[in-house]
């Protein structure tokens, strides 16, 4: 393939040797420490204030570092972690149902379709229990039993009840806990908070990450901020598809700018398509809304047996319905993992059996559950979700089955990090969804919150100290030539975007890019489709730089300018995603290649050729360089996932 070149493999991930249960303890003991008196002299920049960034900024400040925190929203409390509904996994085994650190580790490696790093995942399972303790101490109002102890539920097909939750607003409550800890540190003067600021460039001095260039979104002022280390917690890149469950502002700019400066981008093609979202209603659609996966515990998924059957669902008899998940996967039924449920929905719609005005939808029917448990019980469990559905669609799901369709939800890929969560640039750490680390090719439900908080509260604060202790680093001013050059790049880019003054809006380009990605790099990918997509993306990117129209100027609040910069970076990322998807000639987790499936249509991995992390180095525009990190499975033996 002429689309990329291959570089040296990644030899060392810095994970300690020895039994997996001891590796994190070993690492913590071996890590160098920073004297409390010296911490006050060190500045750490944290970009993003979601679960990972908020918890990291608060914890680092508690430890005594000077922290500068940045977010594009008007308050750190609004980061998109807030929208997570379902819950957070932890290996507490409060249910006495056979759960353990090892089982959570095992489930996560298997759920990730054997494309994650065992050492990292084990550490995640270990610290999961501390997260619950920490959040309870902060006053997070988890659901409780009548005896006053914490309630847990089974989630996303797990066979143990290890998911802690706060109704359908778990992300909100966990984020507010981290936000309040952060605000406490802001009040104490330990964190300098910069809301409505966007990172537009990374500053590297002597090979180390030493600062960022940011734009104040209110005044338009560009400034350069220096530090001893930079932490990116800027979230995922699902908005490359334009329509996704992400917030409108979610973007790849912080991580992409770091990638262009040398940070490897790992597994960009691993994207998670969530099966239960409200279908697109028209061309005006600006985002997609998730309906919690917990609905699949009681809802039954079906489509008509006959193609093009557009009768009212009430008039379609039981014998004319195909409960296809129950039919194909009798042992897991409606609770199969996300990637499998999504693809099955796509398949029945491709067959012409989709429902609703666009025919891109399947029914999620609660009639059985309402009959069995009564409407009251269903209201108590899902009332808020049913109301949300009705608000958006105008249909009453107690009377008419919900219509759902898969939508882009989460990105497992991200900047490559070692065991210490350090990127390939020394001093640049990446946490939460922004890194690639723990979910392999598919993330399990209720594991994103766990990873974000594990990274921010418990992992990074230990590993970052080890890096800082190797200092002290020489003081660098914003007047350093590298910092000045980075700032000039930002200013030039903004000037370029404003100067095009074409005849198409930023959104029209973004929408078109999203369609290309959804069509060719979405639920199913193929060699021919991906090659076509790469050509289309390149052509559209050229057109963008010739025809985009960004009104106004760079002084002051200009939301079109913000969007334009983000979309420009999405174009470059989109191409790399397609190249990554094209090079990975196997199916695994969220990455399904049409050419690589079993005779009955399931994903077919190729462990001999592809049991590695694909870490891409920026080698210039459209010239990625592939570095492979081989994955070794010493504890969980790779098997074909089967949910039949």
């Amino acid at each position, binding site marked *: 393939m002429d689309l990329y070149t291959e570089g040296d493999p990644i030899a060392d991930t810095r994970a300690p040797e020895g039994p997996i249960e001891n590796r994190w303890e070993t690492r913590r003991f071996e890590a160098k420490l920073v004297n409390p008196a010296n911490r006050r002299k060190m500045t750490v920049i944290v970009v993003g204030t979601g679960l990972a960034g908020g918890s990291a900024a608060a914890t680092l400040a508690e430890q005594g570092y000077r922290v500068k925190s940045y977010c594009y929203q008007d308050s750190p409390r609004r980061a998109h972690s807030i929208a997570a509904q379902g819950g957070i996994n932890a290996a507490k085994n409060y249910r006495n149902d056979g759960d353990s650190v090892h089982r959570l580790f095992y489930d996560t490696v298997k759920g990730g379709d054997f494309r994650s790093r065992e050492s990292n995942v084990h550490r995640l399972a270990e610290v999961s229990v501390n997260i619950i303790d920490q959040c*309870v101490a902060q006053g997070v109002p988890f659901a409780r039993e009548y005896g006053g102890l914490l309630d847990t539920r089974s989630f996303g097909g797990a066979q143990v009840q290890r998911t802690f939750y706060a109704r359908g607003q778990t992300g909100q409550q966990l984020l507010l806990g981290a936000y309040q800890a952060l605000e406490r540190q802001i009040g104490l003067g330990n964190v300098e908070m910069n809301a409505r600021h966007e990172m537009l460039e990374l500053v590297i001095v002597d090979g180390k990450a030493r600062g960022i260039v940011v734009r104040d979104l209110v005044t338009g002022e560009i400034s350069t901020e220096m530090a001893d280390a930079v932490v990116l917690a800027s979230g995922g890149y699902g908005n490359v598809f334009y329509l996704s469950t992400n917030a409108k502002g979610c973007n790849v700019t912080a991580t992409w700018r770091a990638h262009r400066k040398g940070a490897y981008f790992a597994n960009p093609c691993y994207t998670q398509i969530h099966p239960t979202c409200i279908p697109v209603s028209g061309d005006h659609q600006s985002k997609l809304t998730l309906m919690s996966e917990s609905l699949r515990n009681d809802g039954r998924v079906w489509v008509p047996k006959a193609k093009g059957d557009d009768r009212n669902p009430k008039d379609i008899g039981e014998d004319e319905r195909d409960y296809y998940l129950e039919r194909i996967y009798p042992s897991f039924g409606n609770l199969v993992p996300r990637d499998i449920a999504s693809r099955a929905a796509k398949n029945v719609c491709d067959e012409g059996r989709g429902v609703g005005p666009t025919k891109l939808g399947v029914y999620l029917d609660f009639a059985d559950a309402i009959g069995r448990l009564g409407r009251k019980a269903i209201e108590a469990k899902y009332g808020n979700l049913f109301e949300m559905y009705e608000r958006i669609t105008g249909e009453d799901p107690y009377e008419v089955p919900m219509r759902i369709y898969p939508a882009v939800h989460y990105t497992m890929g991200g900047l490559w990090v070692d065991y210490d969560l350090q990127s390939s640039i020394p001093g640049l750490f990446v946490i939460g969804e922004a890194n690639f680390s723990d979910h392999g090719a598919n993330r399990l439900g209720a594991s994103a919150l766990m990873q974000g908080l594990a990274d921010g509260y*418990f992992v990074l604060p230990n590993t970052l100290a080890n890096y800082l202790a190797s200092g002290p680093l020489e003081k660098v001013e914003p007047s350093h030539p590298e910092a000045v050059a980075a700032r000039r790049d930002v200013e030039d880019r903004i000037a370029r975007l404003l100067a095009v003054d074409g005849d198409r*809006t930023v959104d029209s380009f973004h929408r078109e890019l999203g369609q290309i990605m959804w069509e060719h790099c979405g639920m199913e990918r193929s060699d021919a489709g991906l090659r076509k997509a790469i050509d289309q993306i390149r052509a559209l990117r050229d057109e963008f730089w010739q025809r985009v129209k960004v009104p106004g100027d760079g002084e002051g*609040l200009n939301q079109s300018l913000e969007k334009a910069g983000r979309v420009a970076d999405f174009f470059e990322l989109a191409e790399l995603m397609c190249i990554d998807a094209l090079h990975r000639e196997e199916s695994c987790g969220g990455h399904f290649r049409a050419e690589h499936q079993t005779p009955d249509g399931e994903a077919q991995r190729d462990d001999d050729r592809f049991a590695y992390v694909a870490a891409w180095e920026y080698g210039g525009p459209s010239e990625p360089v592939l570095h492979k990190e081989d994955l070794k499975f010493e504890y969980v033996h790779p098997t074909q996932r089967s949910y039949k």
Partner: protein
Amino acid sequence: MNLTLRIWRQNGPNDKGRMVTYQVEDVSPDMSFLEMLDVLNERLILQGDEPVAFDHDCREGICGMCGLMINGDAHGPQRGTTACQLHMRQFRDGETIDIEPWRARAFPVIKDLVVNRGAFDKIIAAGGYITAPTGSAPEAHSVPVAKANADAAFESAACIGCGACVAACPNGSGMLFTAAKITQLSLVPQGQPERYTRVIGMVDAHDEAGFGGCTNAGECTAVCPKGIPLNTIGRLNRDYLAATAKRGDTPGA
């Protein structure tokens, strides 16, 4: 449907601002209110005009970033609904809709419909937390919490910090926001040690930020998209009274 919009346009904090009338055609009842504004903005950009600036992010009613006065109602006519979740089927063909920013002394306008709600963060920084540095937490089950208290704490914790309560209040008071956090944290055992210093700190920060006083008008709870109940303010007042009587930081108080 076809609509007439009258939208507040204000170039910056120092601009006087004015209502400007726009026509939008072919609005689908399935559009959200913000998608309807997107359509208007796309047209304005192509005409060479500046699009209307408004805050929004998650568009699923949870981040609290959006906030518009729609025909004088904070978040518009549908109860329990943020502007981003409001859909155009709530309006009639031919209707005229007034769209304005939150108006309150503590929330200065930045541009058009965008306001600065940083004062809310200051209230939280002044005590809206439980001090529990990372690593110091005891085992989660060591302190049971009565389910009724946990549920009531959750009800108050559902606040999204959008500011509708302030915008709807005739006094521009931020008391419902402040009381929601105080109620949540005072209902759980972990929140007791700081209970009385918290209420004093937060109420002082509230007053310093320029919010008005509460006169129990109750407009706040009527427009709250998350249904935070008015009785949280009663709780705040009780705690505040107790705190001033005890001088919260007195040992043994």
